[in-house]
């Protein structure tokens, strides 16, 4: 009875804490400007199913895609087991679903195989990161915390799967001993090999079985609450993020409505402007970006596929699209904390540009869309880079001198070079 009360209390506390943190995350995302992504719901749903659920974009790199699929499938499917654990925990039952008979055996057996797959997948991922040291997982932005974050996630998953398998091994052994409470149920294709490692006394086995049971469920609840602080948030955000993907051709940049109003008014004095959100041109800080940009930042799992294909980064420039996303998230969290402490309108003297992302980074971008193409969950670093450039050029008139010359030429000659418009048709006459 006491165990049940403790279990219910822990579960409720974990859910409450998670809700509290999620509310803050949503509040932070809503710091962004509006953006309409409500069109083409069917196409959006299909994109989400294909890209997030089906992981289609992962398969450009088949090895990690395969491992990731196992870990993902394992983690999702084994969570059916969590349902049983929850019911058992609340009502004090043991293996409540065991009445399903052979179906139960099949389920537990499959969970075990998947759990072993997850275990193995995570172990290989750890080796890739820490032993082989794949280049993709390094870079200026991959400081101590992001590296540790990745390792914590992988180690947690390995520990959770170990607990699950040990629990089953102890349970099966207790079943064989005919221990009270331990009904004969389940098939144990993997954990049977662990049985020999366990002691034979009933008391010790019960302790191990209960210990692993509690570790598994508390571990999952703790993991849930770790998500808002971690890159692992993508397991939830991948879905809304792909649903709200940019469905337009990648080459298309948004036309700024606020600018359209001003340009139209200049060309035609009788023009009455359409509704446009007030604010500065482009983005100086996170609240000048749209909520889609900000959701993108929470979704990023720092895999570095974007950076590994970025022509600027490949050739040694400072720009890294992954850093753009990580900086945006870090700054957004900082702004969020400022609001928690002092309410709206607090100015800490920092901004996304300069305090986080340097001018050198934004001017190195070729807008080639390799990053957006490579992202397995349709994150768009280019949209953020563009907004920062817009701020630098339109609000500050700060751009590299040669860019200023080019802009001046377009303004005066209608071409980015210093040629006379009168000579524009000369190509047809000369040889």
């Amino acid at each position, binding site marked *: 009875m006491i165990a049940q009360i403790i279990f219910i209390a822990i579960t409720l506390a974990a859910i409450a804490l998670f809700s509290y943190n999620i509310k803050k995350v949503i509040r932070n995302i809503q710091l962004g400007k509006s953006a309409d992504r409500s069109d083409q719901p069917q196409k959006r749903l299909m994109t989400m199913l294909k890209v997030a659920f089906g992981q289609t974009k992962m398969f450009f790199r088949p090895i990690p895609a395969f491992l990731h699929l196992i870990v993902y499938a394992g983690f999702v499917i084994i969570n059916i087991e969590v349902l049983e654990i929850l019911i058992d925990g609340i009502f004090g039952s043991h293996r409540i679903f065991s009445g399903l008979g052979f179906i139960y055996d099949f389920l537990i057996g499959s969970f075990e195989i998947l759990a072993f797959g997850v275990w193995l997948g995570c172990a290989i991922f750890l080796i890739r990161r820490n032993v082989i040291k794949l280049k993709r997982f390094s870079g200026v932005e991959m400081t101590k915390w992001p590296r540790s974050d990745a390792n914590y996630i992988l180690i947690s998953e390995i520990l959770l799967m170990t607990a699950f398998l040990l629990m089953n091994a102890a349970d099966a052994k207790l079943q064989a001993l005919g221990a009270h409470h331990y009904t004969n149920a389940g098939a144990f294709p993997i954990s049977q090999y662990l049985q020999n490692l366990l002691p034979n006394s009933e008391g010790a086995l019960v302790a191990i079985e209960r210990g692993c049971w509690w570790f598994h469920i508390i571990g999952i609840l703790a993991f849930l609450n770790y998500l808002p602080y971690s890159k692992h948030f993508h397991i939830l955000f991948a879905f809304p993020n792909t649903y709200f993907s940019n469905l337009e051709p990648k080459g*298309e940049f948004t*036309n700024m409505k606020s600018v359209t109003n001003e340009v139209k008014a200049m060309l035609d004095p009788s023009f009455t402007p359409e509704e446009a959100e007030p604010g500065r041109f482009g983005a100086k800080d996170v609240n000048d970006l749209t909520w889609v940009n900000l959701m993108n930042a929470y979704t990023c799992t720092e895999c570095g596929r974007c950076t590994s*294909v970025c022509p600027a980064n490949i*050739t040694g420039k400072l720009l890294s699209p992954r850093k753009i996303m990580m900086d945006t998230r870090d700054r957004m969290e900082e702004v969020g904390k400022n609001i928690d402490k002092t309410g709206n309108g607090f100015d800490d003297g920092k901004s996304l540009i300069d305090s986080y992302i340097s001018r050198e980074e934004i001017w*190195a971008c070729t807008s080639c869309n390799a990053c957006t*193409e490579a992202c397995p969950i349709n994150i768009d670093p280019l949209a953020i880079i563009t907004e920062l450039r817009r701020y630098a050029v*339109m609000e500050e008139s700060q751009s590299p001198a040669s860019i200023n010359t080019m802009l001046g030429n*377009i303004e005066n000659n209608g071409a980015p070079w210093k040629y006379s418009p009168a000579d524009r*048709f000369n190509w047809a006459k000369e040889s």
Partner: protein
Amino acid sequence: MSEQLNFEVPTMAELIAKGEESEILFWVGCAGSYDERAQKTTRDICKILHHVGIKYAVLGTEESCTGDPAKRAGNEFLFQMQAMTNIEVLNAYNIKKIVTGCPHCFNTIKNEYPGLGGSYEVIHHTQLIQQLIDEGKLKAEGGESFKGKKITYHDPCYLGRGNGVYEAPRKALEVLDAQLVEMKRCKSNGLCCGAGGAQMFKEPEKGIKDINIERIEEALETQPNIIAAGCPFCMTMISDGVKLKDQDQNVQVLDIAEITVRANGL
């Protein structure tokens, strides 16, 4: 195969004056108008249009920058000023269909002009060439033979990833009976030449290498006779790279339109 055009290139203004209409407007673009190397491609596109007898015209001196480099550099004001001025001209001529000689113009007019009041059917010149081949109006006969030559095609970002046009330029090369070899990074995984996003007009940031060198090294790995391009900016970057690698005697950098013209002896 003279460089010179042996026909007049019609402008929209002339056609209207004669009371005629054009089927398609050829949007030349700034590079195609002023850059010497790109001018050759421009003339070749005209040769193709003239050869197949499409009723076409150019804007001539009435054309102005689409605003693409301004927009990518972050100057939305200048972009929209350019766009709206161009749209006014295009709409005044009642233009319905446009072929561009540059993927950047193509992308901007096709995707970014409609929201500002300029909706047209826009194709890139490689798409036009593919259509003409499909319709049997263009073959690879009567000109230079590309048989057995190794050609590798460099995907321009704003044509490929930007707008999903990967096949049209390759189709135009497939008819040549040449040996098409793909670079390691091609199609949706293609590597930028380094000119996009207004980089063409500035020095690159500090790094260990220029992007076009990275690209040209990859292109040379395929040991090509010809590197095919579909964009005047890629053309500049790749040609510079080939020269820097001292390979300009062995490797030609040609636009798809130039290759088509040569193959057809136009």
